[in-house]
């Protein structure tokens, strides 16, 4: 690790943080919704398969589905009540996905097997991983990759470094920040479990230095627990929290193009995931709730809310004082990588780190004009791509050379489109280009 050079990565941007509205408001629990909608697919990988039937009575934490494959996790009832329907419902990704609808009995009775487990740290590795999978944990930073898969690297990829991602570089979002302040012990103990599974010699937490309070609390917690983990204070720059950028900033190791963190001996998990891991292994508690930052000019009372998975946006927003009249756009996640939502009936899922409500003024995209080759996108691309050339090729339907141009290395961070003076939505074009490349690959076999 270099001590003379700054811990950072090349490229990147400095958007306004816009976190002030919620960074000092403590996490509050959203009242139980009358109905929850739980999609069978809230993770990357095969959708899970329902094992309950319409009319069944369920308790909070009961298993609703079984994994649909190795890269898959189950989902659980997030409230107690009756299964009302199993049918396709609007999903945050934009399509309709098979979902299990539960009507609340307002008792919130929990599955009786949930509770503190003795000597959880002494469990063998496979049992810990099984508990993590059975709890339905998928990366809570937003990418929702099944956590047990990340914690089961193949034998030829030894892991020596585990990094916990507390960068939270997306503007507006403060859910990870609040979690680090309010649940540092659970996070660090979760980290301890992950480190014990991976057998990593080095472990650290990367936090952007605009959260000095979190850095202080984490350092103190680690010291109190007598653990050897480091807390890295990272310069504020977007996308500092992107996996490859975090790894290079902390360890100076560059994940090979097209490769995974494990290729350089690293595994990265989000702080929220670490807490979920702790609860899964030490309490056998499945992932049925998460912290969501509800913020933006379009909502009356921005705050950090602990919400049950499956809570419809409408219920969540009502709890936050409701919407202002001039709402223009509702985004799941942050403004850089979040997904615009089409309906208020869409539910909170495992990857919902925030719900950002923009007013009309900020919602409309200006008309795209021609590229003037200003090279700003090239200068900010953290993956060192040439976004303008990629986008031009896609625009003119030239897909055959895109793969050679490393289009698949794009992490869709949005830095290029953020700085484009011609308002070209480069990410939009590049995503489409990636899609075409993958389609061609599939066709070729």
């Amino acid at each position, binding site marked *: 690790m270099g001590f003379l050079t700054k811990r950072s990565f090349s490229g990147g941007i400095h958007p306004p943080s816009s976190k002030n509205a919620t960074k000092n408001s403590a996490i509050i629990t959203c009242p139980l919704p009358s109905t929850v909608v739980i999609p069978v697919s809230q993770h990357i990988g095969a959708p899970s398969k329902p094992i309950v039937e319409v009319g069944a009575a369920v308790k909070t934490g009961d298993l609703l589905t079984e994994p649909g494959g190795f890269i898959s996790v189950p989902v659980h009832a997030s409230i107690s009540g009756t299964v009302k329907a199993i049918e396709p419902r609007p999903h945050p990704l934009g399509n309709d996905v098979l979902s299990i609808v539960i009507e609340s009995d307002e008792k919130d009775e929990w599955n009786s097997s949930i509770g503190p487990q003795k000597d959880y740290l002494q469990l063998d590795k496979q049992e810990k991983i099984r508990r993590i999978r059975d709890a339905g944990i998928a990366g809570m930073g937003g990418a929702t990759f099944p956590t047990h898969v990340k914690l089961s690297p193949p034998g030829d990829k030894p892991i020596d470094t585990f990094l916990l991602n507390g960068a939270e570089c997306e503007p507006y979002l403060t859910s990870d920040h609040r979690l680090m302040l309010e649940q540092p012990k659970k996070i660090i103990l979760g980290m301890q479990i992950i480190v014990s599974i991976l057998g990593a010699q080095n472990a650290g937490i990367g936090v952007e230095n605009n959260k000095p309070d979190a850095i202080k609390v984490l350092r103190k917690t680690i010291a109190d627990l007598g653990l050897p983990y480091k807390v890295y204070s990272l310069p504020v720059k977007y996308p500092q929290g992107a996996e490859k950028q975090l790894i290079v900033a902390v360890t100076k190791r560059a994940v090979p193009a097209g490769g995974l963190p494990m290729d350089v001996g690293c595994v990265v998990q989000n702080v929220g995931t670490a807490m979920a891991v702790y609860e899964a292994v030490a309490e056998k508690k499945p992932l049925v709730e998460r912290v969501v930052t509800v913020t933006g000019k379009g909502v009356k009372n921005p705050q950090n809310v602990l919400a049950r998975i499956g809570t419809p946006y409408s219920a969540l927003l009502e709890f936050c004082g409701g919407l202002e009249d001039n709402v223009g756009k509702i985004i799941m996640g942050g403004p850089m990588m979040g997904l615009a939502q089409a309906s208020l009936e869409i539910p909170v899922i495992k990857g919902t780190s925030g719900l950002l409500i923009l007013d009309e003024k900020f919602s409309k995209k200006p008309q795209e004009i021609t590229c003037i080759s200003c090279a700003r996108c090239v200068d900010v691309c953290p993956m060192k791509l040439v976004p*303008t050339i990629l986008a031009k090729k896609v625009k003119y339907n030239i897909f055959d050379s895109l793969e050679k141009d490393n289009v698949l290395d794009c992490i869709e961070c949005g830095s290029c489109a953020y700085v484009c003076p*011609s308002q070209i939505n480069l990410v939009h074009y590049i995503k489409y280009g990636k899609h075409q490349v993958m389609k061609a690959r599939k066709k070729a076999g």
Partner: protein
Amino acid sequence: MEKKLFVSSSPHITDRESVAKIMFTVIAALVPAGIGGVYFFGPKALWVILVSVLASVATEAVIQILMKKPVTVGDGSAILTGILLAFTISVQVPLWIPAVGAFFAIAVGKQVFGGLGFNPMNPALLGRAFLLASWPDYMIRFDLARPRGGHLAGIPINIDGITEATPLNVFRQLRDIYSNTTEFTGVQPDVHQQIDTLTSSYTSIKNLFIGDVGGCIGETSALLLLAGAAFLMYKRYIGWKIPFGYIGTVALLSWIFGGKTDLFSGNILFFVFSGGLILGAFYMATDMVTSPVTFRGRILFGIGCGVITVLIRQVGGYPEGVCYSILLMNLTVPLLDRWNRPKVFGKVKK
């Protein structure tokens, strides 16, 4: 749901930059040099600038109307082209010259290719090259181009037979005389000293720097151009790679080849501040549309401009080579970008 929501691809925020903002900021950065031009060359300079700008804007608007395209003169790019073209011509031209030049710049240099963003070469420089090729008599007349001072080209020298009054012109003529003195004995015994005065004396360099010398309207004042360029660099609308690559190359090669006859004896300051180099390096070579987007491409582009400029200045048929060097390098941009793609993050050498 009664209310419709906007749905679009991420990101959902931008830094609120726009092409128009960039263009008008560059225009603002050129205002000091424009005022300097009017100060040094008299009120007619203002007319040349105005005619050039109006002709540019009118040409763009008329073509876009005729082609049934949206009229985009509001983005400021045609205004900028007009200003840059006016900056590269002599104050002595008749006023139809900038009008014709601006028409050519916009019509043939830009709109033929599809308008802003598609032109392969800098429209203003293409307009100037067209004027220089078509009406050289007007374009190379600088004899009255500096009504204020007392000396030729603002330089305290006085040699018979030198007619064209820009510092680079004087230099080329003096050096021709100097290198011929061995054949023609007794010719201009003090030429040696005059060249030194021109290229190295404090007065000469000072006049060059502030712009009190003969030349085109907006090119003479290094001071005012650099002030604007510093502002643009601070705003990050121009980078360091092209101008520094360009000027650095000119400085190095001029030091090597710009002496009287010996190598490594050229005066760097004289060649850097003479002619259109500062204007060209900071405002023309950096034109976003016609310069590379890649990191290494931009440096090589600057170096290439520098090499061609010095080649033309020292051995070519013209005393100044900034215009042609940039136009020629403009044509290499697609190749420079293709050959100098950045290495993708995490790419290991094979």
